[in-house]
């Protein structure tokens, strides 16, 4: 199958870029031919993926051969960009519209670039009707597509983004960072994300003096792009001015963009966000996976993402936000419970889960396409093509352990659906008006001497052979799945035992602290 993935840009560090990377790897493992069409050059991607990316200039003009002959098109939508209009020109194949939500213009906090958000919102209603299936990251986005943009509920699929859980896990605070930011003996309230208007970092700053009344050593650490564009710069300068007014500027750290996030999560005591609008919220999951309790505003996707792993504050209510932060920072038992729930919740956003559901969506979207080639099993042995290059990659061991299982299951399903190579529903027709039925009758009867004694029996033998092969493959899959399930069960038990051990150790540390 030929697949075209289209977006404005592809940055390995951001959520959509990571999502596209996961999808590309998924298709390559299946043996599909993938190309990625971007307006801006990709950033931070492994070289084997970078070679698949190309400029999107030729799309609207229909000059690109791969694009023109693709079987599946995946349009990512973080906002409207010029060549997304090519969705209207596609004349064959299946189309998926991947909606990542558009920040409401009224929450942007700056006049700069606001028109882009307005256009982005208008584009959703205009472009979604051209897609066969709409995929989005959260139930909130799905509801928005249906209720706000009038999309058909039965064409919308929710597929939460995957988070690389093996990178984000609880661990000791990194001494270098403590030293760099002078955080000895400080309680760190962490926020991660770009400082856009809707993120309302100013509310976190407002809440800080109230928190410090109960937790005097509290520090607010804001990690993420704070100079990216004019709108972000405006928001940050206003927030800094407010921090000076409140006298807490020395307790607020703007780190800017960082290369590796996990140590920052490990540095913190609580993750806080006062954002008024989120389409998904990857940092929340990364924080939960890193063993942080969460305090977030009760808006959009937050209640769904967090579940029982955090406390929800009323939106724009600084006093409530501060109270919830104090509660988490001072009540160890509550904090422990939230962390436990967070670790469990984060596991639901694994790459394995994502790929399983993504395979289901792809099968559904392409089920009607004619003459789909089988996924080529050679990809089982081509893992080296996808070998990780930088730290944001998936470890090789895990890809090998999980991917073939998913691949074989989806491959078998497709093989099964195409095992019967006979075109049983085919009816000989003629396009000729009036005389059509007569011509069809003649064609049927003039070929019956070849069809009945030779062609039909040959093809039936092929069909029965196909079914026997599939039977054997299914047997092998069953045996293999049982083995893997056993292995996974053992890993889970080991993980559980380790968690219990950590819990006990923590209790012992707490007791030791009390004794001291």
């Amino acid at each position, binding site marked *: 199958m030929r697949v075209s993935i289209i977006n404005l840009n592809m940055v390995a560090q951001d959520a959509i870029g990571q999502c596209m990377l996961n999808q590309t790897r998924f298709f390559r493992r299946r043996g599909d031919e993938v190309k990625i069409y971007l307006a801006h050059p990709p950033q931070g991607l492994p070289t084997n993926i970078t070679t698949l990316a190309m400029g999107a200039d030729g799309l609207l003009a229909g000059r690109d051969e791969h694009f023109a002959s693709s079987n599946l098109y995946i349009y990512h939508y973080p906002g409207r960009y010029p060549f997304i209009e090519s969705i209207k020109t596609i004349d064959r194949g299946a189309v998926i519209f991947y909606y990542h939500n558009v920040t409401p213009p009224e929450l942007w906090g700056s006049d700069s670039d606001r028109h882009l958000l307005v256009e982005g919102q208008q584009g959703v209603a205009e472009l979604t*009707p051209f897609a066969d299936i709409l995929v989005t990251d959260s139930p909130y986005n799905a509801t928005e597509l249906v209720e706000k943009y009038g999309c058909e509920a039965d064409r919308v699929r929710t597929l939460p983004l995957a988070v690389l859980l093996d990178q984000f896990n609880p661990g000791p605070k990194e001494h270098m960072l403590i030293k760099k930011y002078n955080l000895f003996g400080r309680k760190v309230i962490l926020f991660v994300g770009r400082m856009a208007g809707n993120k309302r970092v100013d509310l976190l700053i407002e809440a800080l003096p109230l928190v410090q009344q109960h937790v005097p050593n509290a520090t607010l650490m804001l990690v993420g792009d704070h100079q990216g564009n004019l709108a972000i710069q405006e928001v940050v300068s206003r927030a800094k001015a407010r921090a000076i007014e409140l006298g807490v500027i020395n307790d607020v750290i703007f780190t800017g963009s960082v290369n590796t996030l996990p140590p920052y999560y490990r540095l913190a005591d609580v993750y806080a966000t006062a954002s008024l609008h989120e389409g998904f919220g990857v940092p929340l999951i990364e924080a939960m996976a890193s063993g942080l309790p969460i305090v977030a505003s009760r808006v959009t996707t937050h209640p769904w993402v967090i579940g029982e792993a955090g406390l929800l504050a009323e939106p724009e209510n600084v006093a409530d936000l501060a109270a919830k932060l104090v509660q988490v920072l001072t009540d160890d038992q509550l904090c422990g419970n939230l962390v436990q729930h967070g670790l469990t919740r984060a596991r639901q956003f694994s790459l394995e889960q994502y790929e399983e559901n993504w395979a289901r969506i792809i099968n559904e979207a392409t089920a009607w396409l004619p003459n789909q080639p089988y996924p080529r099993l050679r990809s089982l042995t081509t893992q080296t093509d996808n070998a990780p290059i930088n730290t944001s990659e998936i470890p090789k061991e895990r890809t090998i352990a999980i991917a073939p299982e998913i691949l074989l299951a989806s491959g078998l399903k497709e093989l099964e659906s195409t095992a019967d190579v006979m075109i049983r529903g085919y009816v000989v027709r003629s396009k000729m008006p009036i005389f059509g039925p007569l011509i069809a009758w003649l064609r049927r009867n003039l070929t019956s001497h070849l069809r009945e004694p030779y062609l039909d029996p040959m093809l039936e033998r092929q069909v029965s052979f196909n079914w026997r092969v599939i039977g054997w493959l299914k047997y092998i899959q069953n045996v293999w799945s049982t083995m893997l399930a056993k292995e996974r069960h053992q890993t889970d038990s080991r993980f559980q035992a380790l968690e219990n051990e950590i819990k006990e150790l923590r209790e012992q540390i707490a007791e030791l602290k009390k004794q001291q």
Partner: protein
Amino acid sequence: MRLLHVTHQYRPAIGGAERYITDLSEELARRGHQVDVFTSRSQDYLTWHNALPYFEQLDGVNIYRFNSLPRNGLAWRALEYGFRHYWQTRHRFYEPFIFYGSGPVCLGMLDAILRDAHKYDLIHISQLHYSHSFTAYLAACQRHLPIVITPLLHAEQRETYDIGYLQTILKGSQTILTLTTAEKQYLVKLGYDNEIIVSGSGLQLRDFPPLDKQTCRAQFNLPANGFVMLFLGRKTVYKGLDKCLEAFVTLRQQRNDIYFLAVGPETEFSTQLWQRYQGLEGLIVRGTASNEERLAALAACDVLAMPSTGESFGIVYLEAWAYHKAVIGANINAVASLIRDDVDGLLVEPHSITYSTRGLLAHQLNYLADHPEIAQRMGQHGRAKLEQRYTVEHIADIVEGTYARTIRRKNSFK
């Protein structure tokens, strides 16, 4: 895209279905698509009288009109005979009678589609239950043109969908466009597994310019401060005019600041009603109204009360929302999927016993008269909903996308 729209009647003929296809065709033509319309020469579905020109070009749309057989006494008798026996026996023998009686039977249209089908990427048939739909369907199938249909069926009226050849059309179409989710759910319930898309119907907001409420009230001799309920539409039995009058009489006994403005073509039923309620104070009646009068009536009222039980969509509610007015509709499937009770309007139970229905409608009206701020808020919510979901541009977005998907599917098998 090169599109062929087939409909029973087209502008300047008046009606909801005609307006739907006219607005859609013009909007798509404006977007650069080639849109041709095949229709009958009639603007009266009671006679199918051939009166309009054979060809016209209106707002970028090429309209080709075809002669149809007249709907005379024989046709009506055939229709009645067909209906009477078809549902008893379900025998195909009676279907031609219904086909002939429903009309418009345009043989020229069949020939034209067979001949010119190669010029189009897709055929869109509007209004299922008239005979043009089967003519177009046969020709499109013969020439392997992808078919999109807007059936505009009324779940309450089985003659609009429950006949063998109509079911064949629905089954054979690649995509079905419905106006409401209720209509879609009903089709799913009937077992149709084609792609069914809710397109809705829409208004051109520029057709509803702001008007001064007091000036409009003066036009109908209505006082500036009274509470005005409006009935706007053909005054037939199922539109609920009698329920509105009963509610008005009940309310008028309690308060004299309430007025009832009834605008729309008269029928035998309404004439009888006016005789019964002759001389009622606060009642203002207007017959067939010009577009300006309709808009003035909408601007003059406080609430549109139309507890109609035979709506396939209810575009009149959208018109009221265009002027920020609250609406009251009957709690039937189609209307309930348009009006959100207590948010942008109120729903009343249509099938309760007369007393409670009357009581209920009167109660709702009284509630809005007592709380004008709630009525205003509902009107504003309605207007916001209209702007977001029910403009012609939005409907054209959905239909254009649906066409593209249908053509793509067809091409993928080439």
